[in-house]
C-alpha cells in the first residue's frame, strides 16, 4: 500500500507542481481546455467557508469572475484570515488543484483544492462618509419634516373650515 501511494505521488507530483496559473476568466470561458487538469487559480476569498459533508467550500473572486473551491481537508482553510465582505478585503489566495468542468461528486463546475497559499493579506478598511452626504441627509430630512408639519396643520385646519 505504501509503495502504491509513493508511486502515485511520484506520478502526480510533477503535475501538481508544474500546474500553470490560469485566470478565472479564461477558465470559465473555455472550461473544456482545462477539464480534469491540475492548475492554479488566484482570487480574493469571499464571504465565509461553507461546510459540506467532511469537506468545505470556499468561493473566490477575480475580475468579476467567481469559482467555488472544494477542500476535502478543511484544516487547510485555517490559513485564510480575512474573508471579503462589506468594508473588508478578503485574502487573495493561490489555489493548486484539479479543475472539473462537470464534477461527478458535486455535479457542477469546481476545483478540488490540494493546497493554498495566501499571496496577499486581506484587511478591514474604515468606512468613509463624505460631509456632503451628511449635509444632504440633514437637508432632506428637514424638508421632509417641514412638509409633513405643513400638511398636518393644513389637514387639521382644513377639516375645521
Amino acid at each position, binding site marked *: 500500500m505504501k509503495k502504491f501511494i509513493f508511486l502515485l505521488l511520484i506520478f502526480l507530483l510533477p503535475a501538481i507542481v508544474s500546474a500553470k496559473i490560469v485566470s478565472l476568466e479564461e477558465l*470559465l*470561458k473555455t*472550461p473544456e481546455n482545462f477539464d480534469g487538469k491540475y492548475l492554479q487559480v488566484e482570487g480574493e476569498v*469571499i*464571504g*465565509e*467557508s*461553507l*461546510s*459540506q459533508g467532511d469537506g*468545505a*467550500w470556499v*468561493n473566490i*473572486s477575480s475580475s*468579476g*469572475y*467567481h*469559482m*467555488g473551491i*472544494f477542500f476535502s481537508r478543511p484544516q487547510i482553510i485555517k490559513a485564510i484570515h480575512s474573508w*471579503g*465582505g*462589506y*468594508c*473588508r478585503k478578503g485574502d487573495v489566495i493561490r489555489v493548486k488543484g484539479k479543475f472539473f468542468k*462537470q464534477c*461527478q461528486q*458535486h*455535479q*457542477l*463546475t*469546481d476545483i478540488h483544492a490540494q493546497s493554498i497559499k495566501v499571496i496577499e493579506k486581506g484587511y478591514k478598511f474604515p*468606512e*468613509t*462618509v463624505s460631509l456632503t*452626504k*451628511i449635509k*444632504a*441627509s440633514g*437637508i*432632506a*430630512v*428637514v*424638508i*421632509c*419634516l417641514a*412638509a*409633513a408639519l*405643513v*400638511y398636518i396643520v*393644513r389637514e387639521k385646519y382644513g377639516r375645521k373650515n
Partner: protein
Amino acid sequence: MIISPDRKDFSSILNILGRLVLGLSFFMLIPLVTAALKREVSPFFDFLIGFGICGALGFGLMLLFPMKKEAGWIHAFFTVSFGWLIFSLLGAVPLHLSGHFASYIDAWFESMSGFATTGLVLIQDLDHLSFAHNMWRHLTMFIGGQGIILASLSILTRARSVALGFYIGEARQEKILPNVVDTSRFIWKVSFVYMVLGVAAFFAILYNQGMKWDKSFFHALWIFFAAFDTGGFAPQAQNIAYYHSPLMEAATVVFMVLGAINFNLHFWLWNRSKKEIFKNFEIKTFMLSLFGLTGILYFSLRFCGTGEILFRKGFYQLVSAHTGCGFTNLNSLGLNHFPILGVLALIFAMMVGGGVCSTTGGIKLMRLGIIFKTFFTEIKRWMMPFRSVYKDRFHHLQDLVFSSKRVKEAFIYSAFFLLTYLAGALVAIVLGYPASLSLFESVSATANVGLSVGITNPTMPLLLKIVYIFQMWAGRLEFISIFVSIGFLLSLFKK
C-alpha cells in the same frame, strides 16, 4: 366616446402618487434600521437621504395637488403606470449612493429590476455590498411582487371603490374575495405565512453550513423574498451557486413554484378543496409544459453525465425560468455553454411564466393553455358535422366555458408579449449581439425572469439598458395600463 382627463384628474393622480411615494419612504426605514443594527454608517446616511427625499416629495405632492375628484379608472391606470416608474427612480437613490453602480441609469435599472421582480443586475462588486443595501434590493422584490400600489392604497387611503382598477392595472386579472382590498390582504397573509416557513427552512440550511446566525437569518430572508416573489436577486454575485448546496437548491425550487402559483389557487387550497390542485387547468398546463421542456432539455444535455448533474444543471435552470424567478446555480457564463436546443427550451419556459394572479411575468399558463386548447377545439370542430354546436370546457376553480372573450384576451396579451420579446431582441441584434443571446436576454427582461447569458452588464450600451428598463416595466404591468395611459394622454391632443 373616449373619456379624456382634465386638470382635476391630473391633480388627483399626483395626489395619489404623493401618498404612494410617502409609503415608499416608510419602506426605506427597514434598510435604515438594518444599517443601524449592523453599524453600517455610510449606508445609514444613504437611506436617510432616500427617506427624506421620498417623504418630502410625498408630502409636497399631497400639498400642491389636492384630490379634486373621486378616484376612478383613469386615475388608477395613470397611477399604476407612472407609479412604477417613480418608485424605481426613487428606489434607485440609495442604491446609487452606495457607490456600487457606474451611473444613475445603472442604479435605476437595478431598482426597476427589483420592483418588477426581474432579477437582472448591473451592480458591481456585489460581494462587498452592505447589509442595508442588500436588504433594500431584496425588499424591492417583495414590495413589487405583492403589488405595491394596491397594498399601499389599502393601507393609506379609503379609496376602496377604485381598488379594482389598481388591482387590474398591476396585472392581476382575478379577484380572490369579493372585496379587492380583502383580496390584497389575503395575498399578504399567505405571503407572511410562507415567509415564516421559508425563512426557517433557509436559515436551518445556511446555519448548518457554518454561516453565522445573523448572516444566516438575513440571507434566508432575502432568498425567500427572491424565491417567493420570483425575483431572482441574491446577496452574493454567484447567486445560488455561492452556497454549493443541493438542499438549498431544492428548498428554493419549492418556494419558486409556490410563488408561481395563482394566489386564487392558494386560497382554494387553504380554505376550500385540496383536490383542486389535481383538476386545475393552470397546474395541468404547467405540468405538461414542464415535463415536455424537461425532456427537451435533458435530451440536449444528454452527454453531460449522471441524472444528478442533469437535475442540478438542467432542471434547476428550467424551474427557475418557468417560474420567472431567475435563480441560477451555475457559474457566470454557465448558460453560454448550453446547447442551442437547451437554450431554446429555457427561452420558451421564460416566455410562458407561471399562473395569472401570481408574482411571475410572461404570457402566463392560463393563456398558453387557452391558446393550445383553442387550437385543438378548432380541429375538432372541423371534424364534426357541419351544423353541430360544440363548446369546450376547462376547470379553473370551477367549470368554465371557452368563451370568445377569453380566447381573444389570451391572443391579444400573448401577441403583446411576443412583439415585445422580438422588438427587444432586434435592438440587441442591431447593437451587435448574437441573435439567440439577444432573444434570450430580451425574453428574460420582458417576462421578468432575470436569467442572463451575459449581455446584461455595466458595459452594455446605454440604449439597451433603457430598452430593458422599458421591457421590465411593461412586462410587469402587462402593457394594458401603460397603453391606456398613453391613450388618455393622446386624447388630450384631440380636445
